[in-house]
């Protein structure tokens, strides 16, 4: 198994991690298969929806409005949720969030907790900190359970274990659940997980979840899921803690009528996922009586100022951009060195965690635009990627190793050349002379030095024709 850390502070650069993952043919097959299946389902359901583009536009507008007045909507949510008997906590960073959660569990005398899949808790590496504080954590989403039992890392924001196939899951469950005779068909594996978790649902009295949406108008939380483990956790527990990024708020209850049309279609290719739960604070006689929301900043407020970066926070974590991404398809999620992978990870990670640690991520894209095309809230990911690239370049401006980097020198030179067409023509002629020694017997270039060698590692290059277009044009004009 290829295990690459998804801690952005320690992860290798994208090309490095990718190189390792590209050798894992099993993983690549699993990823390609899974993303193909979801993509096809998604495409079919989007095609049947004649108002899809209008819904994307509306979804983007709802999310943009929430962010434009984020302070107001957060306060409104807090007021409403509190009035309904819930408690709201604010955490500036991961450490503070972990401390708040540990405190709530301590007060509730909980030494075990059941969890619903939540990228936000993965972001703050909550499980590890709870375990080290002596709290036993049970992941209850099937994919999360696979990861937890296998000490693995999420590789997708919707289907975090899609890099594993049935045989791998069987071996894991057989070992960890002591079921030597377990079959390797998905129904048998699912049944094993059902039985394993059933007892936990009835026994463990504290639960942790994320939030798909926080509704400012009503102070409600909305959770979208498939398996019913979410309903189990959020209905049967006494103490429930929802950990949500501050960007998760939407202005109105009616906003769900748009986002609940686009999210399931984009995420899993379903008209609607099996279960959505919406609840507000505490309801006497139904569900937990000790209800907490932890609002997490953890770098998000830094993205708000500029509209170009702010759109990143519109994300509703549907995963469609991952499924469609031709780069993700080759490497899977671990190459992105963060729990947020794929195109959204490539823009979110460098912005949430200091850019220094994720400089290669904005470049982990061919800018093909497939992500933007499928995004249900119209985040222009390529636009953000190229903007972040410019931030990387600016940041390295005075960095010595970068001043002398081949790329920077090359780019500077080219920029100068392009400012004057005579200079450009001269450069064209020079290039022809420069490449001569590299032209092979068959008239093609097979090996180049320096950065260009990355090209010729896998591809040949036709030599520059003897006459450029402009030379031909000039000759033609002269003879006319």
């Amino acid at each position, binding site marked *: 198994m290829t295990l690459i850390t998804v801690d952005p502070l320690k992860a290798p650069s994208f090309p490095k991690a990718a190189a390792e993952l590209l050798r894992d043919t099993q993983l690549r097959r699993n990823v390609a298969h899974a993303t193909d299946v979801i993509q096809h389902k998604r495409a079919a359901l989007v095609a049947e929806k004649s108002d899809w583009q209008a819904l994307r536009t*509306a979804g983007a507008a709802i999310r943009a409005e929430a962010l434009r007045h984020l302070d107001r909507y957060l306060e409104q949510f807090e007021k409403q949720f509190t009035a309904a008997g819930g408690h709201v906590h*604010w955490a500036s960073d991961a450490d503070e969030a972990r401390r708040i959660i540990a405190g709530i569990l301590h007060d509730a005398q909980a030494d075990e907790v059941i969890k619903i899949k939540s990228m936000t808790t993965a972001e703050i590496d909550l499980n590890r900190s709870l375990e080290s504080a002596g709290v036993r954590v049970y992941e209850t989403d*099937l994919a999360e359970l696979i990861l937890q039992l296998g000490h693995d890392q999420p590789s997708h924001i919707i289907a975090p274990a899609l890099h594993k196939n049935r045989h791998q899951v069987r071996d894991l469950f057989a070992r960890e659940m002591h079921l030597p005779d377990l079959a390797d068909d998905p129904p048998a594996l699912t049944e094993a997980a*059902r039985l394993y978790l059933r007892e936990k649902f009835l026994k463990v009295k504290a639960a942790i979840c994320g939030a798909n949406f926080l509704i400012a108008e009503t102070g409600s939380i909305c959770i979208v899921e498939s398996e*019913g483990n979410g309903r189990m956790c959020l209905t049967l527990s006494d103490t429930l803690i929802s950990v949500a990024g501050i960007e998760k708020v939407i202005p109105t209850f009616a906003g769900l009528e748009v986002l609940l049309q686009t999210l399931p279609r984009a995420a899993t290719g379903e008209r609607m996922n099996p279960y959505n739960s919406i609840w507000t604070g505490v309801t006497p006689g*139904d569900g937990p009586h000790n209800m907490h929301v932890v609002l997490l900043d953890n770098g998000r407020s830094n993205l708000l100022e500029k509209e170009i970066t702010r759109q990143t926070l519109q994300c509703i974590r549907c995963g469609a951009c991952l499924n469609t991404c031709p780069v993700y398809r080759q490497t899977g999620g671990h190459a992105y060195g963060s729990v947020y992978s794929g195109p959204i990870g490539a823009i979110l990670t460098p912005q949430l965690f200091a850019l220094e640690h994720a400089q290669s991520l904005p470049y982990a894209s061919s800018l093909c635009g497939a992500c933007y095309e499928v995004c249900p809230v119209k985040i222009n990911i390529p636009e953000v990627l190229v903007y972040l690239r410019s931030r990387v370049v600016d940041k390295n401006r005075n960095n010595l190793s970068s001043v002398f980097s081949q790329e920077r020198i090359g780019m500077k030179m080219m920029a100068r050349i392009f400012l004057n067409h005579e200079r450009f023509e001269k450069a064209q002629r020079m290039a022809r002379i420069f490449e001569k020694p590299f032209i092979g017997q068959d008239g093609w270039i097979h090996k180049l030095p320096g950065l260009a060698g990355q090209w010729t590692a896998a591809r040949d290059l036709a030599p520059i024709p003897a006459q450029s277009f402009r030379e031909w044009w000039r000759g033609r004009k002269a003879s006319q």
Partner: protein
Amino acid sequence: MSREAILGRVRAALSADRSAESSPLLSYPRTGTLNTEERLQMLEERLHEYDARVFHCPEQALAQRIFEVLSAAGRLRIIHPAALPTSWHAAQLDWTPDSPGLSYAEIEAFDGVLTGATAAVTESGSIVLQHGPAEGRRALTLLPDYHLCVIFENQIVETLPECFDRLKANAAAPTTFISGPSATADIEMTRIKGVHGPRFLDVILVTRPSNFPKLTFQ
């Protein structure tokens, strides 16, 4: 305190943008175009796609139909919300009204649960429970392995926006959208029905508007 710090950072970052005040103008179709019959038919198709079984009956035959469906499914010990109309109870079955004293383990042990609903959405094939008197607390429709849900014709809307129009009045109540039995596709994207919620969902569509006042909307 972090509350002030976070809100402060948010306000500082956004201050430049406040002048361009404009609430978004949203335009997307909100209402459906199907007639009652088409609406019913499509709902049925969608429910089938989600592996739910669908039955029909006129209102006056509801109790009989409930009996037939439950007994054919071999579900004899049934729990139900305390306020469920007693007229739905078929005499031959064993009925237990929910009460606060029932533990989750006890609820789980029933053969099935019978409830009404607040709305059903044709387009997405969803059943919506909103804590109404015939719906009860959420654990009821979660723990037993079998759920029989009665839906009246006038509760069926075509689109999600139409559904939210109906839910708005009671927005703060615990609300659950059920769109087929629980399922997972976490292993090789193969859809497996029945993970943690009820593995079996049956629906009775009552094809004439009901006069049961608690279940209708004005």
